[in-house]
Structures are given as structure tokens and as C-alpha cells.
């Protein structure tokens, strides 16, 4: 059932990777954000979520009615989303500073620290 | 206004947090009050009880207007484009219109289909509105003024 979702994940990864290989600084961040989304989605989809079955305990019950979407996977994704958010925000500001101070967004010009 | 918001906040709180009990409502009120104190009293002082009716009238009018107008826009959407006559018109506002009134009017104008507030001109003197379809300019302006503006003023003044 999830083959389409697997394909979507592949697409997101590919898109992220593609953007990561551009010469433009902004595209780099776009690539990172896309890769983050892709990884989050991967964890979620790989865990085999079920449509409309959240892991919530209904009032009067003691456990969520089975079957339900893997709550641990959701928790992992939530943590990962938050972390991606923090890192992406930082990265966005980083490229802004880099562009301002270095004066170009062409990554081929970012080659002074290696040699 | 503040009190109204406060009550609404209490309601919001009580409804969502759990059972609809007085204690819960009370806690909600206190929270709402604190929040309002924290974010500062920019709104006007609570003044009106008598406008409740006017408010209801405005709400009802808006609801009807929204539904009717939506049907109208639905028609515009699927009709032939060349039958449409869009327009950008300046609608003068009542003197000394307050920010709240202007905001409310703008929201309602925008909310109802076929009209869209583009800008407020000068110091709340007039409003620039985009119409999807206008047969008669003056009629259209009059509709706004008689429909929403009047009813809003009834609520606020």
C-alpha cells in the first residue's frame, strides 16, 4: 500500500540532493530543508502508519483501540522535526551572514579555507 | 472589548481544557485576565452591553451575506469571464471612524465574496475596495455603506 509513499520519499530525497548540489547558496538551504523533510517522512512511512488510527487513549479506555499508528515513530519524527527546525533556522541565518560578509552566493567562490 | 475578549478566552479555555464547569471557567477567566494583563491593554475599555443585539444582528447579516455572496461568486467563477466587470472603487468612510471600526469593516468586506479591501486611505477617511463584478458603481458603494458600515457603527457606537 505504501509504495507510492516510498516513491514520494525518494523524490523528496532526490530533490533535496539536487538542490544541495547547486552553486547557489540559497538553493543549498532549500536542499537541506527538503532533505530534512524527506528523512522525517521516511521514519514515519517506514514505520507503517495507519490511516485514521492515532495512538490516543479514548476516554474510558485504558489503551488505544488497536490497530494504531506507531506512536514511537511519531514521537521520533516529532523530535526530528523540531531538531530540523532549529538547525534549519540557524542555517538560514548562516547563509545570510555568509552572503553578506563574503559578498557572493556562488559556492564556487567559497574555496579559500581548504587550501 | 477587553472584557469580551476575556470572556471569550475563558470560554475557549474551559471548553478545551476539560469539563465545562464553573471552576474551569473561572480558571480560564483568570488565565485570560493574566494574558491580557501581560500583553497590555491596547484595546478599548469594556463599555457596552446594549450592543449585544446589534452584534447579533451584524453576525446574522454577515452570515447571510457570506452565503449569498458565495453563491454569487460561485456563479462568477464558472460563468464566462467577459460577462464580469471588475472595479476598484473608493468607498468613503464615516467621519472619525475608529481603527476597530475600520478593521471590522475591512474584514467583513473582504470576507464577503465579490469584494476585497485593498487599502485604507488617509487617516481612516476612505477605503479602496476591489469588486469582482460591478453593474453600477454608486450602487455598489451604497451597498457597502448601508450594509456593513451602518451595522458596525450600531455595534460600536
Amino acid at each position, binding site marked *: 500500500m505504501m509504495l507510492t509513499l516510498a516513491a514520494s520519499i525518494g523524490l523528496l530525497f532526490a530533490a533535496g540532493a539536487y538542490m544541495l548540489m547547486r552553486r547557489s547558496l540559497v538553493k543549498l538551504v532549500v536542499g537541506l530543508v527538503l532533505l530534512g523533510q524527506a528523512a522525517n517522512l521516511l521514519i514515519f512511512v517506514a514505520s507503517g502508519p495507519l490511516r485514521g488510527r*492515532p495512538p*490516543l*487513549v479514548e476516554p474510558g479506555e485504558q489503551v488505544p483501540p488497536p490497530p494504531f499508528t506507531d506512536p514511537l515513530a511519531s514521537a521520533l519524527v*516529532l523530535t526530528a522535526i*523540531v531538531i530540523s527546525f*532549529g538547525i534549519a*533556522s540557524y542555517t538560514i*541565518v548562516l547563509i545570510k551572514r555568509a552572503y553578506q560578509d563574503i559578498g557572493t552566493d556562488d559556492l564556487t567562490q567559497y574555496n579559500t579555507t581548504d587550501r | 472589548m477587553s472584557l469580551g*475578549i476575556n470572556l*471569550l*478566552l475563558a470560554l*475557549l*479555555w474551559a471548553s*478545551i*481544557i*476539560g*469539563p465545562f*464547569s*464553573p*471552576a*474551569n471557567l*473561572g480558571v*480560564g477567566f483568570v*488565565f*485570560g485576565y493574566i*494574558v*491580557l494583563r*501581560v*500583553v*497590555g491593554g*491596547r*484595546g478599548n475599555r469594556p463599555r457596552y452591553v446594549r450592543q449585544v443585539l446589534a452584534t447579533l444582528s451584524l453576525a446574522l447579516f454577515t452570515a447571510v451575506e457570506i452565503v449569498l455572496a458565495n453563491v454569487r461568486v460561485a456563479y462568477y467563477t464558472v460563468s464566462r469571464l467577459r460577462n464580469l466587470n471588475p472595479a476598484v472603487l473608493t468607498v468613503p468612510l464615516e467621519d472619525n471612524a475608529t*481603527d*476597530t471600526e*475600520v*478593521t471590522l469593516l*475591512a*474584514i467583513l468586506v473582504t470576507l464577503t465574496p465579490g469584494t476585497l*479591501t485593498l487599502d*485604507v486611505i488617509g487617516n*481612516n477617511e476612505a477605503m479602496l475596495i476591489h469588486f469582482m463584478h460591478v453593474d453600477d458603481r454608486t450602487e455598489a458603494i451604497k451597498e457597502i455603506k448601508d450594509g456593513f458600515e451602518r451595522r458596525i457603527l450600531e455595534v460600536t457606537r
Partner: protein
Amino acid sequence: MNSVIFRSSTIVLLPFMLVLSIVVLLRGHNEPGGGFVGGLLAASGFALHAMAFGHVSARKTLRIDPRVLIGLGLIIATISGLPAAFMGKAYLKGLWVELNAPGFPDPLKVGTPLAFDIGVYLLVLGAAFLMIVTLEEYRHDANTGS
């Protein structure tokens, strides 16, 4: 942003968002929500305020220095696990008390995980607010400075 309409609605929306954020925080343990979304929601409220009235006003409205708020949130979250540790249990083990508050039909369960979530809330509020206000301030300075 110098729009009467935007500013007026912001005045109304901010308290709503803040209350909503606390609601999200508190009911998070039982329903979708939690400290993180709550904190983001609160920060969004202040972000809205900053957009409408500028960063100076937003900072005044929050009152607490966001950097301190970050530290505070982190300390609360970190410390919330300590009581259990001092009682010889595992760090971060949840401790719960049942409060029979008047007017509430069911006893309220209050526990250290809630404190933890509050820490999360405060931290997220502080951090997100700090980001947005700093950016806005920087943009403002850059525009006026040059």
C-alpha cells in the same frame, strides 16, 4: 507593518493565541498538542505582534528577556527530572500527585512531566521569539543604518 487592519486584528489575536498555546500545552498530555506546539504557538503570537508593531514593542510585550527565558525553560525541564532522582528513583521518572481541586469533578493529576513540558514551552517560546526578534531588529537596523 503599517496597516490599521492588521494591527487591530493583531491586538485581538495575540491573547487568543497565547491562551490557545497554554491550552495546547496543558491538554497535550491527553490530546494532540504539548509543550512544543504550545511554545511555537505562543512564539507565533509574538511574531505576529512583532510584524505588526515592530520588535521593540514585541520585546516590551514579552517583558522577559528571551535569552533568560531559554535558560529558564531549560533549567525547568532539566530540574523536573531531579525530584525523582533525589528520591532514589531514576532521573526523569514521572512523579504524580492527585489534586482534588474544588469544582473539578475528577481529581487533577499533576506531575513532573507537566513541569517538563512547561520547560519545553518556555524554551521554545524563548528561542523562537529570540530568533524572530533578532532578525526583525537586524533588518530594522540594516535598513535604518544604511
